[in-house]
C-alpha cells in the first residue's frame, strides 16, 4: 500500500513522539545533577540534549528489535503505526502532567500493540518478542540498577568516609557531570532508536523499504534532532519527582546512580534490548537511597510510580486501539487527520492545565510537597529516637 500523504503524517507524528520522549526522559539523565547542584538546570539540559544527539548515532540494534520483534511486519499498515504513536504521545503527555516518570518505550510499544490488535487481532502481535525482549528486560533492569546503585553507594560512602566534606562534595559533583554526560549518550543510544524503529516499520508498511531493511541515515538524523530538542525543553515536572521525590540525593548518591544507569542502559543497548531508560534511572536513584546509612527512600511514592508503570502498556494499548478505531471510522486518510487534531487539542488542554502549577528551571529544586515533608519529619523523628537509645 503506497500512500505518501499518510506516510508523511506518520513520520511527523513519530518525530513528535520522539520529541515528547526527549522532554519526558530528560529527568533520567539530569535529575540527580540538578538536585545536587552539580550543574545549573539550564546548563544540565543543554549538555544532555547535545549528548542525546551524539548517542542517537552510536548504534541501531534497538531500532532493529523495535522494527521487527514486536508485531508481524507483514500485517502492519500505516494507520496502525499512526494509532500506536497517538496512543504513546497521549500517555506520555498525561504522565508528564502528573510528574510520573513512566516509560516512553512501553508507551510506544503498548500503543503499537493496541492499534495492531484493533486492526488484525492478537495473532498479529509477537507475544514472545514482547515477553522476551520487552517485559523481561524491563522488569530485570531496574532491579539490577537498584542493587548495583545500592552497592556502589555503600562502598563509595565507606571509601570516602575519611575525606573532607568540601573535597568530597566537589569531587563527586564533578564526577556527576561526567556520569550525567555518559547517561545522556546512553539515553540517546537507546531511546532515539525506538522512534527510528517505528519510522522504519512505517516505511516497510508503505512499501518504501523491504521487510527487515536497515534504518535509513536520514531517519537517524531526524530522530536524533527531535529527541535532542525535546530534551532541551526539559520535562521539569518529572525532573522534580526524580531529583527530589524518591530520596534526598547527595553528590555521592547522584554519581553512583548515574554511573549505574549508564552502564545498565549501554550494556542492554549493546545486546539490542529496548529496555526502559526511565525504569533503570528510577531503580538507580532508589538504590542510591538504599545505599545511604539511614536508607531513606520514599517508598510510598515509588509504589505509586510502580502502579503507573503497570498501567503504561495497557493504557497506551487502549489509547492506540481507540485511535485506530477512530481512523477507521472516518476512513484512513481523513481519520488520521481527525485523530491528529484530537491529540493536538488534548495536548493543548494538558499544556494549559500545567500552567496552573508551573514547574520550570527556576523552581525545580524548590519545596517538593506536603507528602515529602511528612516523610522527612518522620525520618527525623526516627533519628531522634535512635539517637536517644543507649
Amino acid at each position, binding site marked *: 500500500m503506497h500512500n505518501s500523504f499518510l506516510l508523511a503524517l506518520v513520520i511527523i507524528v513519530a518525530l513528535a513522539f520522539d520529541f515528547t520522549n526527549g522532554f519526558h526522559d530528560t529527568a533520567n539523565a539530569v535529575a540527580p545533577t540538578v538536585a545536587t547542584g552539580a550543574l545549573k538546570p539550564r546548563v544540565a539540559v543543554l549538555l544532555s540534549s547535545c549528548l542525546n544527539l551524539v548517542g542517537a548515532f552510536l*548504534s541501531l540494534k534497538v531500532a532493529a528489535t523495535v522494527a521487527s520483534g514486536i508485531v508481524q511486519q507483514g500485517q502492519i499498515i500505516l494507520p496502525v503505526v499512526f494509532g500506536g504513536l497517538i496512543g504513546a504521545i497521549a500517555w506520555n503527555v498525561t504522565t508528564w502532567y502528573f510528574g510520573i516518570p513512566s516509560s516512553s518505550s512501553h508507551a510506544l510499544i503498548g500503543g503499537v500493540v493496541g492499534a495492531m490488535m484493533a486492526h488484525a487481532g492478537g495473532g498479529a502481535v509477537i507475544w514472545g518478542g514482547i515477553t522476551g525482549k520487552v517485559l523481561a528486560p524491563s522488569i530485570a533492569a531496574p532491579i539490577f540498577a537498584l542493587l548495583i546503585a545500592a552497592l*556502589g553507594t555503600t*562502598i563509595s560512602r565507606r*571509601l*570516602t568516609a575519611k575525606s573532607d566534606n568540601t573535597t*568530597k562534595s566537589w569531587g563527586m559533583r564533578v564526577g556527576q557531570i561526567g556520569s550525567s554526560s555518559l547517561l545522556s549518550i546512553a539515553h540517546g543510544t537507546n531511546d532515539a532508536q525506538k522512534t527510528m524503529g517505528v519510522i522504519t516499520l512505517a516505511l516497510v508498511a508503505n512499501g518504501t523499504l523491504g521487510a527487515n531493511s536497515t534504518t535509513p541515515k536520514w531517519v537517524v538524523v531526524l530522530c536524533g534532532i527531535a529527541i535532542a530538542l525535546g530534551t532541551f525543553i526539559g520535562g521539569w515536572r518529572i525532573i522534580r519527582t526524580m531529583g527530589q521525590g524518591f530520596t534526598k540525593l547527595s553528590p555521592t548518591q547522584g554519581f553512583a546512580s548515574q554511573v549505574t544507569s549508564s552502564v*545498565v542502559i549501554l550494556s542492554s543497548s549493546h*545486546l539490542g534490548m529496548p529496555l526502559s531508560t526511565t525504569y533503570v534511572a528510577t531503580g538507580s536513584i532508589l538504590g542510591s537511597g538504599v545505599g545511604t546509612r539511614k536508607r531513606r527512600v520514599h517508598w510510598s511514592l515509588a509504589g505509586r510510580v510502580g502502579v503507573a508503570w503497570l498501567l503504561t502498556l495497557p493504557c497506551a494499548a487502549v489509547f492506540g486501539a481507540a485511535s485506530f478505531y477512530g481512523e477507521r471510522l472516518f476512513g484512513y486518510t481523513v481519520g488520521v487527520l481527525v485523530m491528529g487534531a484530537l491529540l493536538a487539542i488534548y495536548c493543548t488542554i494538558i499544556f494549559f492545565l500545567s500552567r496552573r502549577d508551573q514547574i520550570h528551571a527556576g523552581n525545580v529544586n524548590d519545596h517538593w510537597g506536603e507528602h515529602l515533608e511528612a516523610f522527612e519529619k518522620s525520618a527525623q523523628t526516627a533519628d531522634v529516637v535512635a539517637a536517644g537509645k543507649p
Partner: protein
Amino acid sequence: MTTTTPLIDWHALGQVLLTSLVLGVGIVVLFSVCVYSLSQFRRGGATVVVRATNAIVMTATLAAIAASVVWGLYIIIHK
C-alpha cells in the same frame, strides 16, 4: 529433533547484570578512591612522598575510568 528458542534470553540478561555490576561498581569504586586521594593530597602537613603517592593514585584511577568508558563506547560503536 527440534530445538526451541527460550522465550527469555537469560544469557543476555546475565551478561547485562555481570557487565553492569563489574563496570558500575568498578567505576564508582575507582572514582571514590580518586576523591579520597584528592582529599589526602589537599590535606595540610602531608609529606612530599604522601602527596606524590596520592597524585599517582588520582591519575591512575582517572585514567582507568576514562579507558573503561572509551572501551565501552568503542565496543558499542564497532559491533
